[in-house]
């Protein structure tokens, strides 16, 4: 099939970007979206042009590296799917695809579709961990975890850190990411001792990074490749309120 691509090209962080049109001819519907970009890039290189830079690695939907917004939807039209797992059979011959990077102030464009998501790392550094020294852990079964809690924590922990939630939110809010990360650890008994400290510092790091505020529209959950529920946002709102009030009233 033949498609028309409008791809965001931006040389580097400080350069001006713009949409550039490319003809994508003879695309096999069995290709993945990134394989389609590979093919376009091979043609660009052969023609002496710069290929389109995009992040990708595992190409099986788990590493969270790939990131592109297709016709306004991060990771494209198929639900619960990263762009590396999206296949061209979901498009029609003659479609025009606008391909842009994940856009947010906290995710500056590095080149073309590649963005800098290190803000997520800084949020984890602020408190997305359990402080346990290597080798000092107690026997694993001495701390039973109700299956329900373990499953709930696992739902949150399946976040792949791709940033689609930020890209989809009209306010570029990182609430779903932070909520999933905090919710995972706050739910488990192992994470309880640091719960208040964790939510306060992770939210502070999120605000610091320049993300916007939650809209309560749940576009984030809708685009999330792992379908992480907005219920975790409610959980974070609750936990943050409790932690803040405790801090306000008891110091």
């Amino acid at each position, binding site marked *: 099939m033949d498609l028309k691509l409008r791809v965001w090209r931006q040389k580097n962080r400080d350069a001006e970007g713009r949409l550039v049109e490319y003809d994508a001819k003879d695309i096999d519907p069995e290709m993945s979206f990134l394989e389609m970009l590979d093919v376009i890039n091979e043609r660009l290189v052969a023609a002496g042009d710069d290929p389109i830079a995009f992040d990708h690695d595992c190409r099986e939907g788990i590493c969270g590296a790939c990131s592109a917004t297709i016709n306004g939807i991060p990771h494209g039209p198929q639900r619960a799917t990263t762009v590396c797992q999206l296949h061209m059979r979901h498009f029609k011959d003659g479609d025009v695809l606008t391909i842009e990077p994940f856009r947010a102030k906290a995710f500056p464009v590095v080149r073309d579709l590649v963005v800098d998501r290190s803000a997520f790392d800084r949020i984890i550094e602020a408190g997305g961990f359990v402080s346990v020294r290597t080798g000092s852990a107690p026997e*694993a079964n001495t701390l039973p975890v109700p299956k329900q809690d373990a499953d709930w924590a*696992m739902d949150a922990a399946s976040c792949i850190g791709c940033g689609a939630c930020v890209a989809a939110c009209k306010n570029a809010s990182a609430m779903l990411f932070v909520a999933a990360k905090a919710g995972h650890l706050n739910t488990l008994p192992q994470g309880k001792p640091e719960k208040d400290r964790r939510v306060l510092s992770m939210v502070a790091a999120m605000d610091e990074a320049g993300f916007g505020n939650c809209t309560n529209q749940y576009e984030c959950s809708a685009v999330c490749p792992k379908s992480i529920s907005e219920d975790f946002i409610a959980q974070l709102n609750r936990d943050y309120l409790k932690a803040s009030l405790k801090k306000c009233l008891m110091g």
Partner: protein
Amino acid sequence: MKLDSKIPSGPLAEKWTRYRSEIKLVNPANKRKYEIIVVGSGLAGAAAAASMGEMGYNVKCFCYQDSPRRAHSIAAQGGINAAKNYQNDGDSIHRLFYDTIKGGDFRAREANVHRLAEVSAEIIDQCAAQGVPFAREYGGHLANRSFGGAQVSRTFYARGQTGQQLLLGAYSALCRQIAAGTVKMYPRTEMLDLVLVDGHAKGIVVRDMVTGEISCHAADAVALGTGGYANVYDLSTNARGCNVTAAYRAYKRGALFANPCYTQIHPTCIPVSGDYQSKLTLMSESLRNDGRVWVPKKKGDTRKPHEIPEDERDYYLERKYPSYGNLAPRDISSRSAKEVCDEGRGVGPGGQGVYLDFSDSIERLGLAVIQERYGNLFEMYERITGEDAYKVPMRIYPALHYTMGGLWVDYNLMSNIPGLHVIGEANFSDHGANRLGASALMQGLADGYFVLPYTIGAYLADVRGKRPSVDQKEFQDVKKEVEEQTNRLVSIQGDRTVQSFHKELGKLMWDKAGMARNKKGLEEAIAKIPEIREEFWKNVRVPGSGEELNQELEKAGRLADFLEFGELLCRDALDRQESCGGHFREEHQTEDGEALRDDENYSYVSCWEHRGDNEKPALHKEPLVYEEVKMATRSYK
């Protein structure tokens, strides 16, 4: 060259405990004076960087991904083994040790494997304490599943994302140390060479993948946790970025490369759909429990699967291995698939695939049972192929998955270059010729959390205060070489893309040194690879410059090393005239096509020494001495 594996004396079961209490320690006040470079942030790298940072060392950690959380350990699905005996089914450290040695076809080092089994239980404790959401039973205790190659149920798991959850645990520990200032993280930074000072590994040269800046980093010791080399085959289940460069550069600086021919092939992957294919996706082997493997009897049969009558189907695994049938071991079933495809009976686009048919099981057990057992796998298959495997048979084909070979290390996980430590898949140490399912995660974390942080002290305690400056000639010389290579790559401006060369190399490797190897094919490959290499250096086209984010340049640099490494792999495969584990030599098989090992002549670790570009490498042998275990034939009867 004398290879000292430094295995401690004493009974096997006491070696590690005893050694650990005798190992040299670095005074806590002195630890902060040491700098350690860790390259790679997967399970091994992240765990080691976090643990050593926590102990008080100054750690610098490098990864090529945009975040350490994305290292390819993340893609492991199945689980992690540990000798906990939670199921009360008679598991023990000894059993895990023995299963791993046997699974490795008696080509691994006894003492290392025993240590691995010993620390396996601690890993689970550590990860559970970090908040890894392992599957639980209703009573709140950890759940287990069984996995291939073991008669006990000892695999811990977190849905189908065990690798991701364990990596996120290690990454969270790493982040905690980054915040504490003991680890400095360098994402999007690729190691391009190793720097030796007076024969010791004292630093690395890296390229900042965003700005293109090439810089030097000095340290007291270097640890490589840079993963395996399956991408030498171009198509594999590895992430696109996985590469051999760090390990290969160390090899070129004098580190020995051990057993490169030990590669593991996974029988149930989604087949290639066209020549644009960039990646192969693995599906759990458990599918073979209820699926029947078949191909048409007739060559080039293009009918749809349901149009082929029963008597025109060849259920070749059931035919050839009546007792094991569709559950024949990984290597056997992989090779059989290749055989029937080579005969021209393969199915699907390109004829590189066989059917895995669930219709009998659906009829026997009902759709609901199959859905419950494999629903997520069928969904994954549907996502990629667009086919509904409840209605039409799945198509599967084997793919490169894991590499057991790696840089040679001693018991301290230090290579023959003093100061250079190698951990995780990047070393050769624990899996012998074949790795058991759910053991890769175990080894990565064992090396990172519980072995290297102790054993590195044995080296550091002896080299007090000798950290060189990056201004020294040794660093500047290597930096210059790296810059020259980069400039050379962007200045060729030939006609062919990097990927076209990678595809060519990959196809050659897969055909000649893939699932089954023979002398003639390997010799052809050894003759052909230098030709591809020469053509590459004359005719590759790398657009742009070295001073910017340039993904073609990154790929070209990695491929340049694969183009040399592939030859080394073939040479090792040629030398090893036996079949063992993941290495199958067609000349060495039993009448029923099973691997024929030669313990008398080949029970050694092949250690290859670089002797200059386009020179034949030298082979050194570390004999495998088994104190406790008796070598036996791996039998599937």
